[in-house]
């Protein structure tokens, strides 16, 4: 019924030129330096009507009419950083990232899309913002999320909409081990982010990015994280 007050606007969480970013994948961290940024948005993105006490029949990968995914960089040279808000206030948006991997579980049993666990609704993350931190998504080429929606009310929702704000970054991959260690041990200001979540594990790094970063650096980042300095 009331709009949640956010501690911080999501806009303050976007990265700027020169910022350091370390994305944690299942195999280790990939570290980047942001070269440039460009904002964009998808508003409104319609998930469609949701019947009373029902969920959508299929997961939605947030695509345009041509099936192209809005939240996945179409090229390897970009990273997408996005947040979203939800309309209606009671529409419960569930999240898979990567696709078919449920996220935001809280209990040992599998999260369901008709349950009371692991969703973002329009009160948590209002359609017009500021968007909740829990809606933050970092995406690289070949890695994208999917969404579903549950209507807990006994009245049908005519149209559930999402409002995505997307920041597109250009980057270089950091290969300097000293700098990687300083980023991962928090000696250098940088943004560390676990891609997709921790249960059961972060998203697996796409092959193309793994090849660019190199297995040696991924293993090195794991060693730094596990053993500190």
């Amino acid at each position, binding site marked *: 019924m009331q709009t949640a007050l956010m501690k911080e606007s999501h806009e303050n969480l976007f990265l700027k030129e020169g910022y350091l970013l370390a994305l944690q994948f299942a195999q280790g961290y990939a570290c980047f330096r942001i070269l440039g940024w460009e904002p964009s948005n998808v508003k409104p993105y319609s998930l469609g009507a949701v019947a009373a006490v029902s969920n959508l029949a299929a997961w939605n990968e947030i695509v345009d009419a041509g099936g192209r995914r809005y939240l996945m960089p179409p090229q390897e040279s970009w990273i997408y950083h996005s947040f979203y808000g939800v309309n209606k*206030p009671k529409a419960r948006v569930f999240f898979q990232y990567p696709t078919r991997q449920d996220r935001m579980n809280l209990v040992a049993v599998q999260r369901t899309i008709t349950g009371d666990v692991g969703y973002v609704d*329009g009160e948590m993350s209002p359609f017009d913002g500021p968007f909740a931190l829990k809606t933050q998504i970092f995406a690289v080429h070949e890695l994208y999320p999917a969404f579903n929606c549950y209507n807990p009310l006994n*009245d049908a929702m005519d149209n559930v909409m999402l409002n995505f704000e997307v920041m597109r970054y250009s980057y270089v991959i950091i290969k300097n081990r000293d700098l990687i260690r300083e980023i991962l041990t928090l000696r250098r200001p940088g943004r560390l982010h676990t891609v997709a979540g921790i249960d059961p594990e972060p998203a697996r790094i796409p092959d193309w990015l793994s090849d660019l970063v190199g297995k040696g650096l991924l293993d090195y980042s794991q060693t730094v994280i596990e053993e500190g300095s």
Partner: protein
Amino acid sequence: MVDKRGLQSERYPVTAVVAIIGSAIPVNMRRYIYRVKVQDDSGAPNLVELQSLLVGGVPVVVDQFRLAVADETYVDPDELKEDALPIYIIPGSTVVAGATVARNLRAIGTGNASLLLEYEDSE
């Protein structure tokens, strides 16, 4: 405060026979009614009653609307302000021994009428 994105507007026909109007109020939520409009359709003075009923329980009269003149319309509030508070708060359905027991709104008039509610179901 009213949230325009969560607000529902529903019109219900009212007759001289008491009947459920609208959907059951969800469990763990309450129905916040922000605006009501009652219109006589009987061509005579009318007394419209809004009730809530937990299935198996005793109806609770939420409010009565006396339309002293034929075809009279009663509206409250005239204009819904952004910072409006609900004028009625109806408890939700409940769970007894693991089974949901529905709570509904009901309405009855001394003759035909129309009832419009603007409401939001929320925790």
